[in-house]
């Protein structure tokens, strides 16, 4: 249940869920084999819970987006209205992470999913968020720019945000952190960038969960239906609360507190693991 809460919170907060999944078990002296079929099956269930929470939170937006996408395909042309533009931006933004994730995810994780690289990437994640906030402030101070609405984002900018999201393949780099920073750099405000980031994450998390469902039925998986449903519900409820909190938080606040958290957590983990305290 702790893992379910951790997944629900850290998947959406810009602090890297994968990084926490790598760092926390050895810190708490848990003997978790992350290649074990039962553990992987449980992670699938948690991802599905998170994806359902995002779908539930943004249900009205998704209905409008899907309608607008289908309408534009039937007409064969773009009308330029907000939901249609947002829908196609989500499609083009999902392509980079889809391709890079499917082709390189397992090799990247094999290379970097151990505590010391994750601690370093967590600190890099912090620097990315600090740099994003600083660059945005500088852009706006110099040119008196104002934040633009999502329908003014260009296709190239949409692809750029998608590539930023792909950085989360590196354990320790946060998907939402990277995509919110990219959103800020293309002149979205914090609230719009966060909403765009969560909408962009939904198909990726949902499809990653659905495509891994066969893992649940592999021989050797010892997770029962009660544990699976409980994990899914706990992750879903926590994720729903997280997205509700974050969308309010980003109406008036920025990424810096999360940057400080990642910097301190990464530095502490680096010291602890490199001094073999938790080897």
């Amino acid at each position, binding site marked *: 249940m702790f893992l379910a809460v951790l997944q629900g919170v850290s998947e959406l907060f810009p602090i890297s869920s994968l990084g926490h999944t790598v760092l926390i078990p050895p810190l708490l002296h848990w003997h978790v084999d992350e290649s074990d079929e039962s553990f992987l099956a449980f992670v699938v269930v948690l991802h599905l819970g998170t994806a359902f929470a995002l779908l539930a939170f943004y249900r009205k937006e998704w209905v409008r987006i899907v309608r607008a996408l289908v309408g534009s395909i039937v007409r064969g042309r773009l009308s330029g209205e907000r939901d249609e533009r947002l829908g196609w931006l989500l499609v083009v933004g999902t392509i980079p992470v889809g391709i890079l994730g*499917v082709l390189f995810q397992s090799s990247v994780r094999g290379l970097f999913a151990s505590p010391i690289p994750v601690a370093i990437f967590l600190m890099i994640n912090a620097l990315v968020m600090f740099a994003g906030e600083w660059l945005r402030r500088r852009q706006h101070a110099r040119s008196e720019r104002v934040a633009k609405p999502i329908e003014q984002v260009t296709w190239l900018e949409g692809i750029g945000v998608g590539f930023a999201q792909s950085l989360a393949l590196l354990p320790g780099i946060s998907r939402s952190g990277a995509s919110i920073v990219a959103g800020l750099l293309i002149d979205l405000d914090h609230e719009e960038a966060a909403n765009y980031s969560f909408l962009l994450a939904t198909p990726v998390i949902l499809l990653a969960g659905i495509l891994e469902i066969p893992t649940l039925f592999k021989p050797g998986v010892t997770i029962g239906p009660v544990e699976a449903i409980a994990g899914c519900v706990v992750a879903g409820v926590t994720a729903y609360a997280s997205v509700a909190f974050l969308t309010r938080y980003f109406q008036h606040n920025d990424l810096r507190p999360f940057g400080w958290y990642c910097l301190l957590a990464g530095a502490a983990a680096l010291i602890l693991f490199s001094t073999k305290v938790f080897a």
Partner: protein
Amino acid sequence: MKSLAIALAVIFVLCAILSILHPLEANQMTRALGFSSDKAHAKHPFLYFALAVLALVWLRFQTATPAR
């Protein structure tokens, strides 16, 4: 641009077929592309079919009659 969209759709469908049949010998590249039998996963065919569909949608946008 229409022919590029068609070519992409055909290429992605071929990739999807290769990732289902995975007939190639395993090496770093064929493994990453899902064309070899070890580490074969439903993700690869799904990705290639999705990209093929997107290429066809792109074609649809290019071939539809413009609005008057």
